[in-house]
């Protein structure tokens, strides 16, 4: 498979309009990291395995639009991110050359089991690619894998849970900056006029930070789990994202960002949406 990957990358780099090819390479201490290949002699560095965590589409908005073509490898989740980036005018389809990766779930670092971020993955197959490393097959049972949720926690337990989680948070902002969907030139959370968020490390400010992050990702989160991977403190961010995605599905039938061409659920409405706000107070 890697031979095919290298062959495709090589072919791509021969194109006169090719800018670079974004794939994966071996990193320090047995890790895998993003690789930016510009010269054919570097193509041997490209790898594809179950440690290819980074969502490479996060790099695409960095490139000047509509100039040269970027080659990129995408897993299923990344393909959804790409579709979402195209919808949000951040990437133009004709300026990317997409190599689909037949992902069957990533592995937990250092262990031989599927990473938790892939549990419940409803759409591991890449799509809308220009070439693929093999037939896309939905791995058995991945979508049905049970993952940790907040469902069984009481209000009080949830409160305690997040209090501890956010106490861990060191406000490094890595979760925000690694996210493919965070492409604003300047984040509202960095704004000084108004100063929505101060640098205080208290619960209120951390709640605000994580709430805004979660809300801005409503209908845009593709569940890739990069936020949680980037978090040095191990804050369980995916619990929040998944919880909200589940609500979108239950309430508005929204399956997830990039799966269909649906409008993001908070940017559209139905006249007969559920209305919990009509009555008196329950």
């Amino acid at each position: 498979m890697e031979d095919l990957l290298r062959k495709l990358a090589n072919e791509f780099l021969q194109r006169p309009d090719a800018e670079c090819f974004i794939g994966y390479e071996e990193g320090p201490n047995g890790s895998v990291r993003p690789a930016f290949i510009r010269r054919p002699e570097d193509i041997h560095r490209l790898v594809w395995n179950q440690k290819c965590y980074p969502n490479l589409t996060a790099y695409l908005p960095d490139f000047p639009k509509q100039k040269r073509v970027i080659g990129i490898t995408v897993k299923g989740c990344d393909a959804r991110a790409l579709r979402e980036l195209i919808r949000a005018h951040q990437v133009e389809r004709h300026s990317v050359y997409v190599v689909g990766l037949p992902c069957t779930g990533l592995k937990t670092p250092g262990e031989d089991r599927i990473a938790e971020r892939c549990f419940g993955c409803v759409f591991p197959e890449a799509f809308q690619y220009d070439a693929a490393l093999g037939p896309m097959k939905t791995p058995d049972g991945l979508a049905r894998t049970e993952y940790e949720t907040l469902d069984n926690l009481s209000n009080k337990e949830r409160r305690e849970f997040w209090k501890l989680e956010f106490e861990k948070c060191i406000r490094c902002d890595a979760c925000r900056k690694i996210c493919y969907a965070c492409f604003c030139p300047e984040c509202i959370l960095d704004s000084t006029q108004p100063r929505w968020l101060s640098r205080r490390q208290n619960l209120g400010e951390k709640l605000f930070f994580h709430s805004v992050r979660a809300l801005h990702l409503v209908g845009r989160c593709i569940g890739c789990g990069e936020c949680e991977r980037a978090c040095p403190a191990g804050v369980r961010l995916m619990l929040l994202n998944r919880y909200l995605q589940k609500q979108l599905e239950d309430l508005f039938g929204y399956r997830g960002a990039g799966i269909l061409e649906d409008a993001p659920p908070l940017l559209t409405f139905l006249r007969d949406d559920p209305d919990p706000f009509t009555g008196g107070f329950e």
Partner: protein
Amino acid sequence: MMSWQRMDRSDLPAAISVLQEKWDVFAPVKRGTDIRIRQQPTDGKIFLGQTKPLLPLKMLFLPEVEDLFSFTIKGSTSDIIPAEPLTRERVVFGVLGCDIAALEILDHVFLGEPVDGSYNKRREQTTLIAIACTGDGAECFCTSLGINPLEPVGADVLFADVGNGYFFKALSQKGKRMTETLRAFLKKPSEKELTDLSALVPGTRGDISVDRVPKDSDRLWNLPIWEDLARRCLGCGVCTVICPTCHCFDLEDERRGSSGKRFRSWDSCMNTSFTKMASGENPRPTKRERIRQRFLHKLSYYPIKHGLVACVGCGRCSARCPVGIGIDEIIVELAEMEG
């Protein structure tokens, strides 16, 4: 002058209690996989391993958020009440050599003229008990920077865990005061017991050629490596937050009508807005300039000014970087450029 004394494993909790009578005691605490330096015993049980806490020791001297003073504006003048940085002397238990070495780097900044009052007070009133570290992380390379993790310079007391017991050795006057407080628990070790100490051997990589990196920033300024790194770097800034030697901070006024507080908080040169000016101008507009700043500050500007490299080889940044950027790798690459 001062020599090793031995403590039975079972005596440690009682010893800590004795320390608490005189000092606020801080030590690493493990919750799940999260290791932090926290206060004892309110914030949990001591973790006596060699895994680095997520946030380095600097957090006790340059806190993440620190009130500097409160103020009340009265017409054209204002009343300023400085914040009190410490109310009680502190002892920090189980500190790693890399983190202590990093304090020396911060000292040049905060104790050089003008002296930073609150940092100075915190330094003066804190006793550091270093743990003899054999280095358990693949990312560790402190020995490459001349640090002896078994007996770090700058510690007040040295502590060693030899499996069947603990050893203590005072290294300073502050340290002596502390070991004397623990007199009741400490015994002179036998010759045989002392041999346990020799089993401790530093395991960190000593082959990272930091010295061969040219200090002259002009030669490093336009290297293509910065562009390559900038392409991969996501600018997330984790590296700066968990770095024991990064010490940039931001000042913020919290104004509530005519009174308020000024506080400082950790900042990061990896943030886009770090160098953004009121005019909107940003002298480090792209990740290339920012990532170059981060490495050249550690490997060139700081060494030129203070005579030592501003990296202690703890490897936290390499281990936590989500896209696999390692400072050790960069040092080697820059050194090779020279060679």
